[in-house]
C-alpha cells in the first residue's frame, strides 16, 4: 500500500473537519470537527510510522516507529484534557446564554 493513499485519506478527513468548523455554528459540533481533525492526524502519524518501519531506517532503529505511536498516544491524552475543559466552557456558556451558537455572542468585535 503506498503512503499517498493514507495521506490522502488523512488530509481528506482533516479538511472535512475544517469544513465542518467553517460551516457549522453549533459550538459542540465545531468542537467535534476539531476532534475529527485530530484523529486524522493520528491516523497519518501511524501511517507514517509504518512507512518508516518499511524503510531501511525503520529496520535499523525501531524506536523511530514507536516514537510516532507514542506521540499519537500523547495526542489522545491532550485531546482528552482539552475536551474536559472545552465542554466545561461550553456548558458555562450555555448556562449563561442558553445557547451553544458560536455567533450568538459577539459583544467583542472591531
Amino acid at each position: 500500500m503506498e503512503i499517498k493513499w493514507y495521506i490522502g485519506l488523512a488530509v481528506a478527513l482533516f479538511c472535512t473537519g475544517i469544513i465542518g468548523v467553517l460551516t457549522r455554528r453549533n459550538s459542540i459540533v465545531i468542537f467535534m470537527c476539531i476532534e475529527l481533525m485530530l484523529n486524522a492526524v493520528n491516523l497519518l502519524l501511524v501511517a507514517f510510522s509504518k512507512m518508516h518501519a518499511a524503510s531501511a531506517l525503520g529496520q535499523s532503529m525501531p524506536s523511530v516507529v514507536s516514537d510516532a505511536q507514542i506521540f499519537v498516544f500523547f495526542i489522545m491524552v491532550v485531546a482528552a484534557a482539552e475536551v474536559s475543559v472545552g465542554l466545561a466552557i461550553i456548558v458555562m456558556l450555555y448556562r449563561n446564554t442558553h445557547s451553544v451558537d458560536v455567533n450568538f455572542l459577539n459583544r467583542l468585535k472591531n
Partner: protein
Amino acid sequence: MNNVLQMAWLIPVLPLIGFLITGLGRKQLSRSMSGFIGSGTVFLSFLISIYVFYNVKGGNTHVAHYFDFINIPALKIGFDLQIDQLSSVFLLIITGVGFLIHVYSTSYMKAEAPKDFAKYFAFLNLFVFSMLLLVLGANYVIMFMGWEGVGLCSYLLIGYWFKNTSYNVAAKKAFIMNRIGDLGFLLAVFWLISKLGTADYHEVFTSVSKLTATDITGISLLLFVGAMGKSAQIPLYTWLPDAMAGPTPVSALIHAATMVTAGIYMIARSNLLYTMAPVTQGVVAIVGLATAILAATIALKQNDIKKVLAYSTVSQLGYMFLALGVGAYTGAVFHVMTHAFFKALLFLGAGSVIHAMSGEQDIRNMGGLKKYMNITHITFLLACLAIAGMPPFSGFFSKDEILAGAFERSPLLWGVGVAGAVMTAFYMFRLYAMTFLGKFRGTAEQEHHLHESPKAITVPLIMLAILSVIGGWIGIPEIFMHGGHRLEAFLAPVFAQSNALTEKHHLSHTTEYMLMGISVLAALVALLYAWSKFSKYQRTDTEDTGLAKVLANKWYVDELYDSIIVMPVQSLARFFSNVVEKKGIDGFVNGIGKAVNYSSRQIRLIQTGQVGTYILLMVLGILVFFIVQLFL
C-alpha cells in the same frame, strides 16, 4: 604705518560718537546740548577732513588697515579705509554741507520735543557716519556697509514723524527700493569675489585683467543697478520725491547733497570697470539722460515746492550719470559738488520758506515773499541761477563740462541734454517766480506772521549761496583759463587708468564756445519766459488736460509699478499662504494622518467578532502561505 592718515578713522567715528551720545542720552539732553553735540562732532570731522584734504593734495594717499573683518583662507576682507583724492573731495562735501545743515536744523527743528530733537540729531549723525564710511571704505564690502547704512538712515529720517502713516509708507518705499538696488550691488560684489577672491578696490583694479569682458559688463551693470536704487535713476527713482515727507533739512542733506550722490561716487570709484565695459557706459548714459528728461518734465507741473526740487534733483542726478556714461568722471564729481551746494541751498531756502509759511508747501498759495524774507529770496535766486547753468555760477561750469563730454560721445546726447537744461531753467524759475514774485496768495494769518528766518537758518543759506556762486571756479575749462580746471588735475590719479584707456580727442575751441553759447542762451530764454509767465501767476482751478495732466500725475509711474509689481506679489503671497500652504503641503501632511485614521476605521471591521469568519480568514491565510511556499 605712522602715516598721519592712519587717524582717518576719527572722521567717521566722531559723528558715531555724536550719535551714541545724543541717541542714548536723548532723555537727559536739552535741545541746545544735543544740537551742539550733533553739529560739533560733524564740525570736528570737517576740520579733520580739511586737514586730510591738504595731506592728500600734498600727494599723500593711504589705505589704512585697522583689523580683519573676514579672514579665512578663501577670503580676506579687511576693515580698511582708503583716503585718496576722490574720497577726500567727498569728505569735504559731506562734512561741510553736513555741518551747515546740522546748524540749520538746530533752529529748524526747534518745535520738536527735546527727546525727539535729540533723536533727530542722532539719526543725522548716524547718517553722516554711514556716508563717511561709504566714501572712506577701501573695499566694496565696507562701502556696502555705508551704502545700506545711509539707506537705513534715510528710512529713519523720512519716517521721522512716524505717527503719520503716509510718511511711513514713503520711508518704507525708499528703503525697499534701495534694497532692490542693493541686491544688484551685492551680486556684483559676489561676482567679484567669486572671480577674483577679493573686494579690495586696489586688488580688483590691479587684477582686473583676470576678468572676461562679460564679467566686467555684468559686474558693472549690477553695480549700476545699485546706483539706480541709491541715486534714484529710472526705474527706481520714484522713492525720492516721496522721500520729501522727511524734514526739509533731511531732504537737503540726504536727498540732495550727499546720499543720492553715493551712486556717482561708487561708479567714479570703479571707473575702470566702466571704462572697460562700453556697453554699460552706453546704458548708464542713456538711463541717466532719460531720467534727467523724465524728471524734468514731471517737475514742470509740480506745485509742491519740495516736490519740484526733488524732481530737479532726480534730473540733475541723471546728468551726473550721463557724465559717467560718457566717461567724463571728473565732470560727474564736479557736478556732484556744485549740485551739493546749490541744491542744498535750494532745499534750505525752501525750508526757510515753509518755516515762514508755517508748514505750507504748495507754491500756488505763496507768492510775493521777497518783500518778507530778503536773504532767503536772494540766496534762492542765486541758487536758481546756478542750477539753471547761468555763468559764472557754479552750475554753469559743471553742467557745461558734462554737456561737452556728451557731445564728444554723440551730438544727440548733447541735444537732449540741452533740452533738459532748458526745462530745468524753466521750472526752476517757475518755482522762483511763483514763490517770491507776484503778490501773496496765502491766507491772512499766514501772511501776518510771515518773517525772515533766524540766524541759524540764514547763515548757512548765505554760506551755501557763496559756495554755489564760486564753487564752480575750481573747474574752469581750459579755454577760459589754462590750468583752470584744478579739480581735474587733482582727481587725475583716480581716473588715470581709465584715461589711459580712452584717447582724448579734444573739441575745437570754436565748437566748445558754440555749444556753451547755445545751451546758455536756450536756458536764458526759458528762464525769462518762465519769469514773465509766472511772476503774476493767479490761481485758476482749471483741471489740467492731456499731457499736462499726465505730467501732473508723474506719468502714472507709481500706478504702473503698483499694478505690475506690488499687486502680483501680494496676490502671490495670498495664494501661497491660503492655497499652497493650507490646502497643498499642510493638507498633504494632515492627509496622511486622515488616511491612517480612515484605514484604521475600515480595517477594524475585519474583526467581525464571529469565530466562523476568523477561522475562514485564517484558512485563507493558510492557503496563501501554502501557495507562496510550495508553488512560488
